[in-house]
């Protein structure tokens, strides 16, 4: 019996090693292709930056009415284009690498699966980018408006808006990538519904007395004579 166990262990070890030996050239080929494309991507990004700087791309694009910098201040159009070029080459490298891996390891169907998934990944990246930019923009709008309205909790309000947009974006991205399935929808629905319900309860129950007091005060308040403003800006 011991001999049988020994044989089966040896067989399974052999199968694993054989499998690794079969996959190894493919993995090496994948890594090599990725490295080559990383170098190409870096060179292409550098070239793109040089060309864009030479043609004063930032100045030309900034002449328009609504530019990228207005939405995302730390991103210049040149940086954005350079990054797009870099990551496009990296993405091509991954795809070529996957095809090479498939060819070298005789594992069929991998590249077909990756290629069919690619549009979802691109869509998710676009969603993520837009969500981040919109989140920051709205957060800054709320922060500045709240400060100018003299609201003491301006930062809290701005952070809340930013995270609301970020969470919404994350849920959309996961849904787009078909990761998590129904759980993401469900979790997001519960989270959002919970926040709204909590706010409704807070206002409805917690502030009931406050609301009634302020309504009474409003009804009984004498007509105010407007005070003349002493400061005039223009």
């Amino acid at each position, binding site marked *: 019996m011991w001999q049988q166990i020994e044989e089966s262990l040896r067989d399974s070890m052999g199968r694993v090693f054989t499998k690794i030996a079969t996959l190894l050239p493919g993995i090496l080929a994948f890594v090599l292709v990725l490295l080559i494309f990383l170098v190409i991507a870096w060179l292409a990004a550098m070239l793109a930056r040089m060309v864009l700087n030479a043609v004063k791309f930032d100045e030309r694009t*900034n002449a328009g009415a609504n530019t990228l910098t*207005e939405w995302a201040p730390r991103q210049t159009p040149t940086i954005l284009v350079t990054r797009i070029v870099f990551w496009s080459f990296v993405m091509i490298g991954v795809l070529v690498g996957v095809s090479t891996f498939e060819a070298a390891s005789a594992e069929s169907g991998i590249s077909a699966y990756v290629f069919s998934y690619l549009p979802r990944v691109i869509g998710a990246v676009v969603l993520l980018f837009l969500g981040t930019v919109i989140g920051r923009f709205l957060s800054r709008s709320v*922060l500045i408006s709240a400060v*100018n309205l003299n609201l003491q909790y301006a*930062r809290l309000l701005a952070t809340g808006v930013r995270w609301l947009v970020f969470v919404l974006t994350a849920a959309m991205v996961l849904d787009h990538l078909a990761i998590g399935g129904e759980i993401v929808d469900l979790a997001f629905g519960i989270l959002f519904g919970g926040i709204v319900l909590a706010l409704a309860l807070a206002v409805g129950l917690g502030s009931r007395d406050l609301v009634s007091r302020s309504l009474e005060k409003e009804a009984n308040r004498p007509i105010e004579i407007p005070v003349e403003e002493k400061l005039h*800006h*223009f």
Partner: protein
Amino acid sequence: MPKSDLEEETLSETQYAGPVDLLIGIAGAVNAGELQQQVQQLQGYQGSHVVIAYPGATEMEAPVQAESPFRLMPYSLPAADRSLLPWAIASTAQRTICAMAVEMGAKVCLSLHSDLATLDTRHLELFLQAIAEKGCDLVLPVYPSRKFEGLLNHSILAPLTRALYGQRVRFPLAPDFGCSAQMAARLSDSSPHHAAADGALLWPSIQAALSNYQVCQLSLDLQHAPQTEGLELSAILSSLVGSAFSEMETSAAYWQRIRASHPTATFGDIGRQWNDGEPVDTKPLIDSFLLGSRNLQEVWSLVLPPVTLLELKKMSRVDPASFRMPDEVWVRIVYDFALAYRLRTMNRGHLMGALAPLYLGWVASYAGEVAGLSPMGAEQRLEQLAKAYEENKPYLVSRWRWPDRFNP
């Protein structure tokens, strides 16, 4: 001559106006009865061939005798956004009035505030004297000074115009002005048709500086009602300061060459000094500044250099009673915001919103400083600020030319 931007109805009205010596345009909606009454009181006026243009669709009945030199004429304004602020609407009207003056071949053009306070014989003669006899191309009024009025004008618009364009004018964006025929042509040329819809303001003093025309000032003993009542400060800043920054962008090649300012000839009565009564409470202003300082550091750090941020931090820690914003800090803040406006470092609405707490900080500092001073003392304090703008101009020029390299 470029194709006129006037509405068709107005254009046809101007063609039947005959010879015109003086065009008086009312830059804003006006009550017909009040206008007729005011015109009847102008009978002491000695000139001839005067057209008084007012915005409206219908022609008023002749208010005066047949031999009267005055003729009332309606004009229509280009369609503009209803949400525009009062001075933006007035600018649209001023552009139209200048274009009408060009079409009519008027020798002198006056654009007056719609409250008609300036429409009397004495003021008309003063304006005409300055243009026809003294040879001024543009006559801007100087209104009586009050310590706590026109603060945005005194803190940014006037000293910025002085430092950039070399013209010491008290009210560069005045609601009344008079101009010669060539100045009217220049103002009408500088007004693209889309500017009206965009709410872009007309800056006669800047246009005069760009054309090297002679600018004069006329002291007037009258005041118009403040135009900012009930408006949000960030909206006011966006419209007025944003427009001044836009002008900076378009005229950068000119103002970078100007080294110093020169006094502007001033005629008329010496401006009466109006007393302002008790001092204002600066606590709410300082509180707004401190709230901004606590929350907007991240936004300000995109616009202001580290030295200025450090100064602002120090200011936020001092006792409110001794709260002061040094002139140099305020001037550099304005210059840095102008640069950020040009570079579009962030959304321009956000940028002007972020300027509001800083401006209130300056107002608090100024109000604290001039509280015990006479109106003349406050004038001297503003003169000191204007000099600070001029002294710090090299800083602006350096940052404007090399925004990335020169960042102290």
